[in-house]
């Protein structure tokens, strides 16, 4: 009896917020595409969210300090975490309706979602209106954290971070290998994806002192890329930076071989160049192609936290941890950590705790420097990684401290390949 009293007294002294009535349950709304073209993302994420809740409830063990501290949610004296999953079908209006329903009828403490940038936009509007914290683990549209919202937090990098990592890589690579990369050749397709990418690449090239010697916006799904490749060959940049979807990426590689264009380094914007079909079609000819990415499966073996989680995840989901569930898990754990520190399910206490978030990088499964939000709610410690296609598979080559392979540079000329 006196022991219980002592514990209660100690926690009351340690956390004044606890003086308020203790909630028995922490209910979180998790809204993802569970049907429609992107349903796989929602289904794969569901397994990892359930794992996150079990870790917080003490039912599953992840033996690393950050996760141990959360075990049993001591900040709320063992309140149980319960997740309510909902499907937004990839539709902004459905996302908004689900957010409102979860907030007003299920009385969720916070919302997590929702993959599509467009749905995240409308759902977070509803959360903002009701004053409920919204944690977004993966939507990559930069504008989401520029709306002046007070309840919106994003743990993932956005599109501009992803291009930044390429330039960080150039800098570190030049230092490490003692080479000089001065000129860039940009080719990007003419839909939104390419247009955005082209703009960010040009801005960053200027900022970091690289010269853009060739700047081509080409017609997406082109039937011939001969003239584009001829011009690349003529300009001969130190790095060729294409932004393409799959069919264009394949045609570029075939045309390069045909016209004997030998770039020493190819730095691509994910998408077409990283798709399994691209690797199947021209993987051998595309040897040495590099791409930015948020996470790579080959990192699992190198990061103890990721390896431990993957053992649990692969048993449940029947596949290895990859980009989507990896980011989803990181977002959910960030939120659970904040709720635990808040010691309450009151929205403003959680908001305060989220703002004070500071998770060290080595406790994450991602290769980021950690989690810390700026005043817009964007995690500032994010870091993309650079992959390189080597022997028909993408491997992590940057940041160098987490790399699983060395950078292949320069890419051998066509005449020197077997």
């Amino acid at each position: 009896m006196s022991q219980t009293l002592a514990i209660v007294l100690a926690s009351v002294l340690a956390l004044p917020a606890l003086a308020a009535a203790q909630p028995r349950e922490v209910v979180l709304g998790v809204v993802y595409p569970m049907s429609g073209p992107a349903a796989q993302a929602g289904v794969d994420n569901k397994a990892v969210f359930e794992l996150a809740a079990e870790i917080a409830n003490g039912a599953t063990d992840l033996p690393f300090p950050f996760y141990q501290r959360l075990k049993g949610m001591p900040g709320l004296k063992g309140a149980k975490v319960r997740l309510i999953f909902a499907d937004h079908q990839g539709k902004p209006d459905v996302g908004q309706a689900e957010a409102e329903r979860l907030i007003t009828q299920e009385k969720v403490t916070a919302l997590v979602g929702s993959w599509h940038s467009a749905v995240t936009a409308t759902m977070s509007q509803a959360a903002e209106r009701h004053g409920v914290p919204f944690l977004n683990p993966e939507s990559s549209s930069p504008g989401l954290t520029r709306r002046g919202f007070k309840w919106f937090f994003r743990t993932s990098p956005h599109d501009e971070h992803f291009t930044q990592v390429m330039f960080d890589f150039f800098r570190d690579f030049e230092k490490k290998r003692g080479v000089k990369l001065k000129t860039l050749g940009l080719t990007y397709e003419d839909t939104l994806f390419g247009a955005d990418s082209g703009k960010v690449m040009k801005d960053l090239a200027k900022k970091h002192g690289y010269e853009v010697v060739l700047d081509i916006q080409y017609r997406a799904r082109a039937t011939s890329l001969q003239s584009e490749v001829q011009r690349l060959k003529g300009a001969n940049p130190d790095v060729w930076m294409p932004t393409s979807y799959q069919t264009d990426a394949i045609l570029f590689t075939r045309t390069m071989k045909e016209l004997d264009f030998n770039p020493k380094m190819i730095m691509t914007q994910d998408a077409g160049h990283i798709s399994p079909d691209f690797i199947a079609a021209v993987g051998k000819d595309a040897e040495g192609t590099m791409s930015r990415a948020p996470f790579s499966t080959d990192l699992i073996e190198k990061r103890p936290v990721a390896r431990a989680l993957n053992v649990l995840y692969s048993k449940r989901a029947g596949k290895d941890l990859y980009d989507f569930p990896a980011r989803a898990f990181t977002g959910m754990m960030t939120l659970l950590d904040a709720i635990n520190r808040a010691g309450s399910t009151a929205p403003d206490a959680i908001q305060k705790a989220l703002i004070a978030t500071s998770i060290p990088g080595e406790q994450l499964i991602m290769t980021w420097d950690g989690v810390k939000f700026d005043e817009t709610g964007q995690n500032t410690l994010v870091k993309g990684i650079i992959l390189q296609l080597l022997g028909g598979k993408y491997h992590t080559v940057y940041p160098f401290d987490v790399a699983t392979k060395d950078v292949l540079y320069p890419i051998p000329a066509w005449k020197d390949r077997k």
Partner: protein
Amino acid sequence: MVKRTALLALLAAVLVFPAVFTLPFPRHVMIMIFLYGSLAVAWNILAGYCGQISLGHAVFFGIGAYTSTLLVARAGLTPWAGMAAGAALAVVFSQAVAFPVFRLRGHYFAIATIAVGEIVQTLVINWDWAGGARGVFVPIKRPDSLWNFQFHESKALYYYVALGLLLLGLAVTRWLERSRHGYYFRAVREDQQAAASLGVNVAREKHRAIAVSAGLTALGGTFYAQYIFFIDPESVLSLSLSILICLVAVLGGVGTLWGPVVGAAVLVPLSEYTRVWLGGTGRALDVVIYGALIMVIAVLQPAGLVGLAARLGRGRRG
């Protein structure tokens, strides 16, 4: 007489609904019934009464949504002005595309409307000033105001605006049913040659039908934009939206006054509540049930739910 009393009772029930159900979600379901009901009513004027099956009505919806949103976001106008401008623009656009498209009949007309829809969607995706594929936000303005057409505190006003749109569509349909043009429309639907031989100007009547239909659809587009505060080509211009509008009307009963409303009153809650009930399982069971029920109704009662009700009514009397 009995029918009139029943209708008045229904109207009274609908009017007091927000006072009884104060949570946002039931109100949201009703708003969606009104919105999709009004879109299906508008579609029904062209397809049900005039016999021109359009699978491109999302274009008019999108014109309404984009016109008002761009005027709000880029010029600071009130959405009500944008709503009028959007409807006017949709009417003008419908007249322009109608010239080539109405030369086609039956299935070919339907295919052409799909093509128009896809072209417009692709154009908007590549149109930077209109937000491109990224879409446009309606700038949020607090506090709530009727002038700004933004109600964040309560959905009650949205509820009545949507109800107003539906009633407007029904009133127009009712008026058409009894007017000369309504008879011309139906004559065109039944047999274009016969109608022409009786002195009906077939081309002009078709243009009339699509103008009314497009204008009413565009009003719904503006409402959607002010309700969701975000539009992009995928949510307001997609083929799937065009098909949904058509589905609501067909399920309820094409070419009848109440068919589209009945269709919306069955389909919307079915889709919303199966999703709430089963959507989180990740097995898409809700979509399976939704699809299966549509199939059952379509097979058992091709004339739609209104046709089923009429048959039951006849059965009782006979």
